[in-house]
């Protein structure tokens, strides 16, 4: 497989091309086979590669495959090369595995959509681009994948284009992330100029050999700019909640499990630049900590089930950033993996409910419909998988995978001496339990067996992905002792500077439980603390939190309006006025001289006389 692992990204891209060309003429069955099949084969290739890679495993020797020379100009050669090491292997496996399950699920979810083919074409393209991003051995190829996933994200958010709000959300997502991408690109310029290469391994080596510390900081901060855009972290986080306008499988795949974690991958991949710069590391940790807290508070006030999940994604990625920043590199990547499983699970189970409720997103209305029976039947698996996913998200200790990965990050924050970051992470832990189970209790608590049934077409397509991911959301935590050293072969490890007292050890386990308990008190059908709940929801700041701390209004005021104003100002091109002025002056002369051509002899004679008089006067005086 060492020379064939390029097939992992190539197969989905081929699937895209086939569907794009012939999708309109294919039957729904053929589209389904093609769209899911290409990812399935890609998954097989990934598994085969993984098997061989692990077998022939010699101290982390990566597989490198150079496909062709992209371009070479004097001073810089860029090649299309792929690289498989423990980091990219884990990423690729998770991406293609989750993508496969979501494709299976999409076959059910999008069944009957008039543009079934287009949906699968774009989903295939996304998977291909994401795998290119992950497996790229060259930063510019990584950037290609990076922009490719951004494009697919844009296309799929706006998939149901007949709703104008969807198109707006799609454009917002693309433009906001492109702001970050541009910082990333400037970072690339610096790397190319200073190291003379864009090969990740070579650039990392030569930057490590440089003594100056200013340069790595500058580059790392620019890369961080790209990462915060793609991963929806402060201050470029505003696009993610709106991105929920896309169909739910899209939210599950792109805006939860894979693309939004690309920023985490970028930082991990370019770790050589970050470890040289304590400033950049602190910045990563601070951005993560602030985002996780802000997003967790906002998640608490959402009524739209998907927006709640979006804010929770933002918050969980905040944990990953925090982990990277405090030096818990492997733990962050581990959290990426568990998060991919349980968040995809949550979105897909939410999708089952949303579809049954005829695209209803509001949690209070969903409950009403569920109880009144005015919806399609909801399969019981939706309930169970939402519960499993929710428990993993809230990091219920010992039994869920989320607890293993998240607790490692939190303890990393403590042992590396970042006390205030640690405190925010703990507060986030509590809030996560609270907001997750607020939604769970609101929707499900007290609904009897009777509302669930197993009707409908092609239910296996739902059942299998949800069941598989439910299992993974639980058991993925148990491979912690295998996966951390495996990742540690590529990622740096940081020695703890602080011991961990028992209270620090136990706090991240207790706080989610307290959060869940509070959620039960506030939001269960037999809630005791109704007064507190009423106060919280009527609190003057609740609207502010609901709107995600009003970043949208700020940017609208600071950037969007001035830009549109500038556009209106120069719409008719003021520079052209200069040339128009020249034309007007010429026209004026034309008019004056033209009107003097009257054909009247008397006027001509008079003018000749005046002219002669002027010339004579001139000659006499000067």
């Amino acid at each position, binding site marked *: 497989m060492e020379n064939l692992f390029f097939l992992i990204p190539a197969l989905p891209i081929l699937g895209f091309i086939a569907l*794009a060309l012939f999708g*309109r003429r294919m039957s729904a069955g053929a589209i389904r086979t093609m769209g899911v099949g290409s990812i399935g084969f890609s998954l097989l290739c990934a598994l085969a590669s993984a098997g061989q890679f692990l077998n022939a495993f010699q101290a982390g020797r990566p597989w490198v495959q150079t496909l*062709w*020379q*992209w*371009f*070479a*100009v*004097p*001073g*810089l050669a860029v090649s*299309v090369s792929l690289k498989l090491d423990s980091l990219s292997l884990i990423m690729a496996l998770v991406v293609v595995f989750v993508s496969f399950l979501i494709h299976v699920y999409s076959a059910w979810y999008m069944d009957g959509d008039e543009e079934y083919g*287009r949906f699968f074409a774009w989903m295939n393209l996304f998977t291909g681009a994401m795998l290119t991003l992950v497996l790229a051995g060259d930063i*510019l190829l990584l*950037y*290609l994948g990076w*922009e*490719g996933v951004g*494009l697919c994200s*844009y296309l799929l958010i*706006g998939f149901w*284009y*007949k709703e*104008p709000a969807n*198109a707006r959300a*799609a*454009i917002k997502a*693309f*433009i906001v992330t*492109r*702001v970050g*991408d*541009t910082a990333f*690109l*400037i970072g*690339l*310029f*610096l790397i*190319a*100029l200073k190291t*003379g290469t864009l090969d990740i391994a070579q650039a990392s080596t030569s930057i490590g050999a440089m003594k100056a510390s200013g340069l790595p900081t500058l580059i790392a901060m620019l890369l961080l700019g790209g990462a915060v855009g793609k991963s929806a972290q402060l201050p470029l986080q505003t696009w993610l909640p709106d991105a929920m306008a896309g169909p739910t499988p899209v939210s599950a795949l792109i805006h939860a499990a894979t693309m939004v974690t690309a920023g985490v991958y970028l930082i991990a991949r370019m770790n050589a630049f970050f470890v040289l710069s304590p400033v950049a590391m602190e910045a990563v940790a601070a951005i993560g900590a602030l985002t996780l807290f802000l997003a967790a508070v906002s998640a608490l006030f959402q009524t739209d089930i998907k927006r709640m999940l979006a804010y929770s994604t933002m918050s969980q990625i905040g944990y990953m950033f925090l982990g990277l920043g405090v030096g818990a590199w492997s733990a962050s990547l581990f959290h990426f993996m568990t998060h991919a499983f349980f968040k995809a699970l949550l979105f897909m189970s939410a999708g089952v409910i949303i579809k049954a409720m005829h695209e209803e997103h509001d949690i209070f209305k969903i409950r009403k419909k569920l109880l009144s029976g005015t919806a399609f039947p909801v399969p019981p698996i939706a309930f169970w998988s939402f519960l499993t996913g929710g428990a993993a998200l809230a990091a219920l200790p010992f039994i869920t995978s989320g607890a293993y990965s998240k607790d490692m990050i939190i303890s990393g924050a403590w042992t590396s001496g970042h006390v205030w970051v640690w405190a925010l992470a703990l507060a986030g832990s509590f809030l996560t339990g609270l907001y997750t189970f607020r939604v769970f209790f609101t929707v499900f608590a007290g609904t009897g067996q009777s509302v669930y049934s197993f009707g409908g077409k092609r239910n296996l397509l739902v059942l299998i992905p949800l069941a598989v991911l439910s299992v993974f959301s639980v058991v993925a935590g148990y491979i912690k002792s295998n996966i951390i050293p495996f990742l540690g072969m590529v990622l740096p490890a940081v020695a703890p500077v602080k011991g961990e007292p028992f209270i620090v050890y136990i706090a991240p386990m207790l706080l989610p439980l307290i959060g869940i308990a509070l959620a039960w008190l506030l939001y269960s059908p037999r809630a005791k603390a109704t007064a507190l709940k009423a106060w919280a929801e009527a609190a003057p700041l609740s609207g502010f939190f609901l709107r995600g701390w009003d970043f949208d209004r700020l940017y609208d005021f600071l950037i969007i309006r001035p*830009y549109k104003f*500038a*556009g*209106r100002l*120069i*719409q008719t*091109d003021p*520079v*052209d006025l*200069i*040339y128009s002025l020249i034309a007007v002056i010429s026209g004026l002369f034309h008019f004056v001289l033209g009107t003097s051509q009257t054909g009247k002899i008397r006027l001509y004679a008079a003018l000749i006389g005046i002219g002669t008089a002027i010339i004579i006067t001139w000659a006499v005086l000067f």
Partner: protein
Amino acid sequence: MLALLIAALLAGGLLAWMAGRVKPLYARLVSLASLAAAAALWAVTFALNISSLGKGQFISGFKAAWIPQIGVNIHFAADGLSMAFVALTIVLGVVAVFSSWSEIEERTGFFHFNLMWVLAGVAGVFLSFDMFLFYFFWEMMLIPMYFLIAVWGHEKKTYASIKFFIFTQASGLLMLMSILALFYFHGRATGNFTFDYFTLLADKAKPYFGAGTAFIVMLGFFTAFAVKLPAFPFHSWLPDAHTEAPTAGSIVLAGLLLKTGGYGLIRFVLPFFPDASARFAPVALALGVAGVLYGAVLAFAQQDLKRLIADTSISHMGFVLIGIYALNPVALNGAFIEMIAHGISTGMLFFIAGTLAGRVGTRDMSRMSKAANGLPLWSVMPRLGSVGIIFALASMGLPGTGNFVGEFLALLGAFASSPVIAITGSLGLIAATAYSLRMIRKAFFEGSKPTEPAGVRITDFNAREAAVSAVMILAIVWLGVYPQPVINTAGPVLARLIPTSASAAPGRQAGYIPGGGAVQPCHNFTKCSLKTTPSGFAAVFGKGTKWAPGN
């Protein structure tokens, strides 16, 4: 061979005119046949000389005396740079013929005559190596272009065509004066009065005019090329001309005529005036950035689809100007790739705009969906929409398209010369995202009301249009993922045309821009290393900056 190539296009034009009198279809077929002949000649020339082209050498072509008394020759030659642009000319010529297939119903023969003669003029510009002959072709492309706009244009065609003509004619005269100055000073110094490009260039070693004169002569060339490119603030003829021209005219204007400006800067200004170019570079870089941003904001504010696309050209040509005046091979390769890619992508955007406007009867994006009973156009013409989206994405410089390679290299090279210019220019990529996505949404995804699709009579791309699109999509993607063959064709030439560091070494001439600095030409990219000469902005807006040419 090269002379035959031009002759094939000229003869094709005449034949098409005559054939058009019999039946419009014949005019189209004759045009295609002459383009095919030109393509065959190009291919044979390329194949026979592939090794010398790879080394950056010239293919000697046709040479004959024209006006021997004043040293004017008809001299056609080519190197990799010329060959690449001639290839673009032929390809876009084919697209232009196809785009007018069902659009031009009136005086079809004369239309194709004009079209072929513009193409011949453009090819002549790329292949002439006698300054007089170059100027001849430079003017020759104007007149048929003027007719294309003035006769087959849209509502404001008279205004637009005259404006186009005056801008290019006036700036062309400045270039003529500069050419004559070159001729005169060279003749006076060497006793050899000639317009021959190679002689004039070779004798540069023994400078035949002083640095001050050189600067002024350089400005004459620069103005002509900057108007054609167009560079800010000489761009204002472009939106009118592009908007009012028929589709084929817009394709040729955007795809080819603008490229003659960039070609001229690379072919003449850089090698003839290395020192003056280095001195002038900060100003040119600043104009480039201004064009990038101004064009992008302008494009964002338009309702007229063709005017929007025209404004994006101003933005893209800003990248070209930046790439040229960064004065290093990386950036220059970028400018070159950007020109080729822009020819394809913007040519195709005009193709789409033309076919779309022809179907829906308006260029106003907010009224387009009316023709589809208020449905978003995507739902009735997915093929046209897909092609439109692909080229709009190319226009915003998405990786995987040739435009990305061009912009990346141009900005990367510029970063070595002036980080401020490169960073400010990069903002243009965000602005490009904004106008491209707005265009996609307004043109394809926005409907006015959800009516039933019943009774919609507009049709999607037919097989002919789809085939043209498919070929061009392959071309832009090929340029995006494997541009190396194209770089290999022109790269050695470009490296030679950059002013050498020795000739631009400080001390050989006084500064023309007091308080500002020159951009140091740099051949080994990684060693350019940001020894920051004052940035373009400081040079242009610096306190007490005054123009003081002459020394």
